[in-house]
């Protein structure tokens, strides 16, 4: 998956209408709440096979920090 596809899917998952970039701070959006974080846990596990918990995902802020947590090697260039 490319970063571009990932940001589109992430916006859809979090129900954020803006286009997301690596610099976007997810914590600026009220949509990034505890329920969205739980959805993100399930999405990351299903898409990348990596299991994080809500506490870990609550610590990231930008899309880039999420990409780093998942691991840049998981994305196509």
């Amino acid at each position, binding site marked *: 998956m490319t970063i571009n596809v990932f940001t589109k899917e992430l916006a859809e*998952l979090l*129900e954020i209408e803006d286009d997301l970039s690596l610099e976007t701070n997810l914590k600026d959006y009220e949509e990034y709440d*505890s*329920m*969205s974080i*739980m*959805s993100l*846990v*399930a*999405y990351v596990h*299903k898409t990348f096979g990596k299991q994080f*918990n*809500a*506490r870990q995902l*609550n610590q990231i802020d930008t899309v880039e920090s999420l990409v780093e947590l998942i691991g840049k090697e998981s994305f196509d260039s």
Partner: protein
Amino acid sequence: MKYWSETLLEKKRILITGASSGIGRECAIACSNLGAHIILMGRDEKRLQEALHSLSGTGHSTIICDLTLVNSIKDHLAHLKSTEPISGFIHCAGIERTRPLKSFDSEDFAVMFNTNVTSAIELTRVISALGYLEKNGASYVFISSVSGINGEKGKLEYSSTKASLFALTKSLALELAVKHIRVNCISPAMVQTPMFKSITDSLPEDSVNSIEAKHLFGFIEPSDVANLCIYLISDLSRKITGSNIVIDSGYTLK
């Protein structure tokens, strides 16, 4: 049997699912302390053996079985027929998961439903057939959850499986009374088990503190649930069937 005694469950053979950890393991230990023979059922042979060694007395056994494979359950129990009559069944096995609606996955839900609900029905069907039970009847207990009563954000899958358990409890209680089988359900709030630890470890600390504050007498211990199981399995509760007993430390009051 009118009152509590140290031989309350003597000669009773009790089948317990999810017996290798948490509430199931605690129930097994508690019932064995009062003289029961336990059939521990679980997936993990090593942990099941550890649980077996923690029991009091003798005459216990294990059955290694993956309850998601519902069609295999009957074969796993076949050796009990006409040899080791069962007088109690406690269904503790269960999968818990927090997953909001937008992440719902029907295949994952089917696995959870099989473990939490369908296996309970199949186990009940098998052991209630001719040749498996004590002649004097039996008592079945299903471990549900208060989330099946009140619901919980992000728990639609788990709460619907747990609500199913107390719905089927009532139907089974009506259907099985003719065989002198009582069927009841226990709905605890947060019990301090390995499952509980994985939930609280994943949540932000303030969320954990807010959940704990709603437990007016603190989080529930596995032994609290085990003590209620003992009562429901024993003849002390001989007039109780079709009930869903809440043990929640006041959690549902607020």
